[in-house]
């Protein structure tokens, strides 16, 4: 062996697998983990509420005479924050003003609709995490998946059923290609996937923008970058009737969660991926191909994100725009982190963030609170989930509870 490399290799501290944050700690109790997540959500909501309160017009007005009547300021703050959150709740879970039960529950179905792409893309991120890869590229994978799905949706004309299947397959394929490229380059050259995925996001964005300027792709007579609407046969049927936007894409998300759970915990492929993620050297020594693992997991992760794009095109939007991925790809990262990279954790985190997003729209229209507050709350949650003092606090609490 080369004498000179000896010290460098021997005291290289093996980097903790990137799943450390997500996969959690064996010693930590389940109760502690749950409590910590709740604490993180509550703390983030409180901080978000404060932000809403101090930027509120009435609050600022009342603060003008704070020393004369401090109560006014405090009550104005309370009204601003609670009003916004109440509106968010109305928009995300239950609307008490609804005429019928169906109307009242409409917000909940909206939450699930928005959650669908979040869950699917979040699963893609979580799966890659478990194999030790940072998939920052869900955004690009969603875009390419959506593009291919949309193209099959509006340019192929197939019988009902078959058409939808083709659309779903195309979306999955698009995402899988865009993700798989990353796995392939990483496997072949050792390039870091974080850089690759970030760069490919922008390549995808420009690619889609270009496609949407082409004659065959751009809607006829439109000067905006928007594709023709997909055929009716290419759309996901509504799950609860035409009154609700919720579509069968949500069922796809549930099935995907089940599938990922099976894959990770009960399949040989999942065994390989987890081994690659937890200790690539040991995996290689045991005859598991690490590079193949990279390719496989990025194909699957891209496929899941591609399905998220499909859900957007075939479920909610029905045509392709360059904004079709919104910020789902980046939200998916926070969803996977909050869900600790477990399939069901990601599922529920996706629903929570779906609720924020769906509720945020209502909030903005009802109280005028800008929807960007949702981004703030979401990112704060993830930061707090990772914050050790909060972890210590939660663990101690749960131990007290247990004792």
């Amino acid at each position: 062996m080369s004498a000179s490399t000896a010290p460098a290799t021997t005291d290289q501290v093996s980097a903790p697998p990137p799943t450390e944050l997500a996969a959690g700690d064996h010693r930590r109790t389940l109760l502690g983990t749950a409590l910590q997540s709740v604490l993180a959500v509550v703390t983030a909501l409180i901080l978000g509420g404060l932000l809403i309160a101090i930027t509120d017009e009435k609050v600022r007005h009342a603060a003008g005479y704070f020393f004369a009547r401090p109560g006014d300021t405090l009550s104005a703050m309370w009204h601003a924050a609670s009003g916004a959150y109440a509106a968010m709740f109305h928009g995300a879970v239950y609307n008490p003003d609804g005429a019928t039960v169906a109307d009242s529950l409409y917000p909940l179905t909206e939450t699930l609709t928005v959650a669908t792409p979040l869950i699917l893309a979040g699963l893609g991120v979580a799966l890659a995490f478990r194999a030790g890869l940072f998939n920052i590229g869900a955004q690009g994978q969603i875009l390419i998946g959506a593009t291919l799905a949309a193209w099959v949706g509006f340019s192929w004309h197939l019988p009902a059923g078959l058409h939808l299947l083709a659309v779903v397959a195309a979306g999955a394929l698009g995402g899988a290609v865009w993700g798989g490229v990353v796995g392939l380059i990483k496997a072949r050259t050792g390039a870091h996937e974080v850089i690759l995925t970030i760069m490919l996001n922008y390549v995808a964005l420009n690619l889609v923008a270009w496609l949407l300027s082409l004659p065959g792709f751009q809607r006829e007579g439109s000067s905006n970058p928007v594709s023709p609407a997909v055929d009716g046969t290419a759309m996901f049927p509504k799950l609860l009737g035409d009154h609700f936007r919720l579509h069968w894409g949500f069922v796809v998300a549930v099935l995907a969660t089940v599938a990922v759970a099976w894959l990770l915990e009960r399949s040989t492929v999942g065994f390989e991926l987890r081994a690659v993620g937890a200790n690539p050297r040991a995996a290689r020594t045991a005859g598991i191909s690490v590079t193949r693992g990279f390719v496989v997991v990025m194909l699957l992760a891209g496929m899941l994100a591609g399905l998220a794009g499909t859900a957007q095109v075939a479920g909610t939007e029905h045509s392709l725009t360059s904004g079709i991925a919104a910020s789902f790809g980046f939200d998916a990262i926070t969803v996977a982190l909050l869900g600790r990279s477990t399939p069901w954790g990601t599922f529920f985190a996706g629903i929570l963030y779906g609720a924020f997003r769906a509720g945020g729209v209502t909030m903005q229209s009802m109280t005028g609170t800008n929807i960007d507050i949702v981004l703030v709350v979401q990112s704060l949650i993830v930061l707090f989930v990772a914050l050790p003092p909060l972890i210590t606090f939660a663990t101690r609490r749960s131990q007290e509870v247990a004792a």
Partner: protein
Amino acid sequence: MQLKLTDVTKRFGDFTANNRVSLTVEPHQIHCLLGENGAGKSTLMNVLYGLYEPTSGTVEINGAPAHFSGPGDAMAAGIGMVHQHFMLVPVFTVAENVALGHESTRGMALDLNSTRARIREISDRFGFAVDPDAVVEDLPVGVQQRVEIIKALVRDAEVLILDEPTAVLTPRETDELLQIMRQLRDNGTSIVFISHKLREVRAVSDVITVIRRGEVVGRVGPETATDELAALMVGRDVSLTVAKEPSLATGAALEVRDLTVLGDNGVVLLDGVDLDVAPGEILAVAGVQGNGQTELTRALVGLEKRVSGSVRLAGRELTGLRTREVLAHGVGFVPEDRSTDGLVDSFSVAENLVLDRYRERGFAAGPSLRRRAIAEHARSEVGEYDIRAGSVDSPVATLSGGNQQKVVIARELGRPLKLFVASQPTRGVDVGSIEFIHRRIVAERDRGTAVLIVSTELDEVYALADRIAVFFHGRLMGIVGPETPRGALGRMMAGEPADAVLPPAPWDGSRSGHGDTGGPTAHDLVPSDAAPQPGSRPSHPGANVPASPRDLATEPSDDRPEGNRTA
């Protein structure tokens, strides 16, 4: 400078690494700290160097209490340390490494010229031959170590701590280092020499403090007999012998021809190696770490990238196959470092026991894992190999080193094999487990499996080997019989071919290698009385090979306290 430790105790959680250790290092003295791996020597020195806070106890310098909150304080107080794993930035030049943390500046700018001058001066004084502008990663290990020593000397260290400095050196480089140590002592530096190698300790020390399980168990002079030192160090009489019949094997199960392995930087790590292993034979590879043994084992199972030559097992070519295919051809492989290569820490014991077997029919049905079968398999292996684990579902990280190693051995011996390759099979394993593992390996041999063992512990080599191979700088120096004396092995480890160091063979064959590197006339033959029987103690402390403590008896362990240590 006098350095005095009084009642120093260091605990990590429940584990006491040092318990009320007291010792005094006087000026002009080489003070040796002798103890097994894991006895607490390095911990003690890290306390002394300010890397660890002692739990209790005091450190005094020239009678005044000293308190170090970091290495900077220790250095300011005149203490320098050469770490076991070198603390050098590989992409920096020698001068940059030496200057780091101790930079002289001219205005805003760094002044490396004065550092270069100091390096040349020290280098000349001790005959180091170190170029200040060489990039460290291009230097051989021995030179890198001198850079470490220069680092300490430039900082005017009056006490120099050397932590297992010979672990990575050849016998020749070791002798040079011992000479440097004497020179430094004569120049007034006090030296703390941490080692577990008896020959070196006796050769160079003025005072020897023996540490066992974190406590001082003796303070003796260098004239103390080797076996007395060993007894102090180990605390009980253990001999490493395995009952085994001589191998009657003939033919070759494994045929290696012209095997060459290149590193990423083009260095030839394994250089045209030819060797055979017969079915039912143990070939043990002895030698200083880092001479190509690791690459040999990794190349056999398809883990090395740049490989040429041929490896045939029972007539089938293995080179070019993927690791999975090699393993499927009936090769069991125990990697050198179980925690980085052998086990997935966060996986359960059960999962680790099938880490390379999860696709077998018994454990998988199509794409699906048969989790119940995997758990049952684990329960039976845990029973058979006496693996002490809370449950087969506990993460393997929670097991002690010895039990972790048994998980790896159990996995690799748990299926029909044609070839069993094990690198350091008992490193960091308690004595009870060593004997168990050795018996298992011999049993595997008796089943007709070809066995290739790589070990840096000569006693292990003698205990197991039917034949012994020695590597030097990636070249095979020869394959010799198990009765070959330690001295002869030592000279082979220093780069002399087998036919140069051995008397005209009393046995036939088994000699190979690159005979054109020299002739036997250049060397004295090894005294004939230097031939120990397998498993016996080294009778020649002056022999050319470092006698490690485990040469004598052993209860090595890694840093974690062994779960099933016997008192």
